[in-house]
């Protein structure tokens, strides 16, 4: 049962790859068209929204009560070293290189073809797969002892699975319940687990030991509970590659678009700092701050 879908997947990949035009030493392939007018209109809108939200946030942050709840601000003494803990650097660099090659040869060309699908089809797939992750989010929010966000994700799952026709439409977002995904990585961070050493996961990249463990565990949890029952059997074999392609198509990162010999260390530096700053936000809860969960504006 498992081989046939895999073969058909390979055939699909081959057909899609053949869609470009190439001669020895030269290739020219069509990629997703740019939409500058809509992008700029979105930038204007985003700027206006941010201005309004920022003004509200600035006002709120000035209240004495909130300042007390947030605890002492981060100072230079709290800043992590510029050097990233990367004891597996040689292996990580090898994996990064493998990922770059895999991405360029297979993942990205397929994702580019996927991006050519009509927009409603793409968003249908994307919404469907995102809806599946709500189950894991609910479980993690419970383990994080955050009933509010848990109810939020549960509400989204129920609404989108019913009114959204099995999750194909994000009806909940239109009802002011925007997506707010979480996972075991965030759960561990909430309970004070350090990110650990930097880790490049094959195909996915980049991560840390904690985030990598969380990622694998979240998938294992979903597979074990198999609810909705789409993770196993033929359905699972068909949907998993599409979910991967959908995930890739929704990430703009491209390996070596910088062509810099220092890309590995730059990505590592930025990723780990981003993780640590997000961790600080999650741990505020320990210090008696209000739940940092506010999906508004997302």
């Amino acid at each position: 049962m498992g081989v046939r879908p895999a073969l058909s997947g390979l055939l699909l990949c081959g057909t899609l790859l053949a869609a470009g035009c190439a001669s020895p030493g030269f290739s020219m392939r069509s990629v997703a068209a740019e939409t500058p007018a809509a992008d700029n209109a979105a930038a204007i809108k985003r700027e206006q929204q941010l201005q309004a939200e920022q003004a509200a946030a600035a006002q709120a942050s000035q209240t004495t009560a909130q300042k007390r709840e947030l605890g002492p601000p981060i100072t230079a003494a709290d800043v992590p070293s510029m050097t990233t803990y990367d004891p597996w650097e040689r292996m990580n660099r090898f994996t990064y290189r493998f990922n770059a090659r895999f991405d360029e040869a297979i993942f990205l060309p397929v994702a580019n073809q996927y991006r050519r699908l009509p927009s409603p089809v793409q968003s249908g797939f994307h919404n469907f797969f995102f809806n599946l992750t709500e189950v894991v989010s609910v479980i993690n929010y419970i383990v994080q002892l955050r009933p509010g966000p848990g109810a939020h994700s549960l509400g989204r799952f129920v609404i989108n699975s019913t009114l959204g026709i099995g999750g194909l439409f994000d009806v909940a977002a239109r009802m002011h319940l925007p997506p707010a995904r979480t996972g075991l990585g965030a759960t561990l961070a909430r309970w004070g687990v350090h990110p650990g050493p930097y880790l490049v996961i094959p195909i996915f990249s980049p991560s840390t030991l904690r985030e990598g463990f969380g990622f694998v565990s979240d998938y294992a949890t979903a597979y074990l509970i198999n609810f909705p029952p789409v993770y196993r059997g033929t359905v699972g074999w068909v949907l998993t590659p599409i979910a991967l392609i959908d995930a890739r198509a929704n990430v703009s990162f491209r390996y070596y678009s910088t062509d810099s010999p220092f890309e590995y260390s730059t990505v590592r530096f930025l990723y780990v700092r981003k993780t640590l700053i997000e961790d600080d936000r999650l741990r505020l809860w320990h210090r008696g701050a209000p739940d940092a969960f506010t999906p508004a504006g997302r």
Partner: protein
Amino acid sequence: MKVSGALCALSALLAALPAVAEPIVGLADSAALRATVLGTPPQEIAPLPARVPLNEIDITLPWARQPRPAVFWFAKQLRAWVSPQRGPAPLAIVISGTGADGNTEKLSLLRAVLYGAGYHVLTMPSPTFPGFIAAASSTGVAGDLLQDSHDLYAAVGEILGHLPARIRITEIDILGYSLGGANAAVIKSIDSTERRLKLPIHRAVMINPPVSLFSSMSRLDQLFTASIGPGDQGFEELYRRIYVRLANFYRVSDAVRIEDTDLFAAAAAVLRTDNDFAAAIALTFRLALMNVFFAGDLYAGTGVVTDPRHPPSPGDSTDSIERRLRDMPFSEYFDRVFAPYYLSHRPGATRASLIAESRLEIIGDALRSDRDYYAQTNADDVILNQPELDWLRNTMNDRIAVYEHGGHLGNLGERQQVTDMLAMLGGRWPEARR
């Protein structure tokens, strides 16, 4: 500098941050520094088309210097981007700025306005982009205006020779921003003698070009020293300062999440003082220089940061190399890599002659007499000093538009800049301005 859409949006947040009084760095005024980092506000961008088709080109260039260092395993082919019109149309070749690739946000903006104006658009990386150095440079040692432009011209020729016949080109024009502007003008000058393209390059527009690469880079080094300081200590202090602000900012603000944008863009939201903005500009150029320095050192075998006998392999850590390069200004690159290489490969060359050859003056006669060269710049451009701005004005005469504000490329895509640029490319300048 790469300024993402998210960064533009985040620029609005700066209005909400308290102004911090601090002496300005002295090399540029406050508005120029801010404009350079934040770019044109989206509300002031010229009308853009709804859809721009895009094709990625990968090409192998036989003259690329071999052997290619192992750490550049990913850059065997040069990458460029083309947006073709359906019918016959003029082609606009657009060249990126210092250290940048052929698909930056700035290029994307220029591509959109040019495509909207009816051009086929080919966007090319800068010859100082590491991917270009590894896949298209005949020397591997970037920074020579004429040599780099020769390599770029040859690469354009190869690409145009391979384009499918359905892309029907009626005329070729060339433009570029920052260092790419100087490259564009030099390429037109080369083309006027070599004529290796199917059609001659008609018009060239330089947007915020340097007048002297050496002088502009030295100016940016001064900006680095003034705003960040020498040694790793200054760099570390800057990192701590930005990290503290970012972390505290995200504690109190739910309006923005880091995952919505990238960390560089997020950092722009917490820049406050002139010193911060100056540091952001200086750092961007220093990061570009690090790539050029590293590649040049490897290709030239000068052994400044790499051991020529044991060059780094793709699995090796580059941390110590990066730490050393962070503290090395352009003058170090020039004196320890660039000059040794070119002095040994160019008979009769001297240090002074190499500096002179980094000036736009090498095509000064053409710029003065040929009415198909144009320029756009800003009176407060960070990379120019007053004598250089005067030189540009005097040289280009009535074929230059100098805007009062905008810093370095801080008004790219703005309505007037685009109107003027299109008038220049269409041969309607300066009549269109009157």
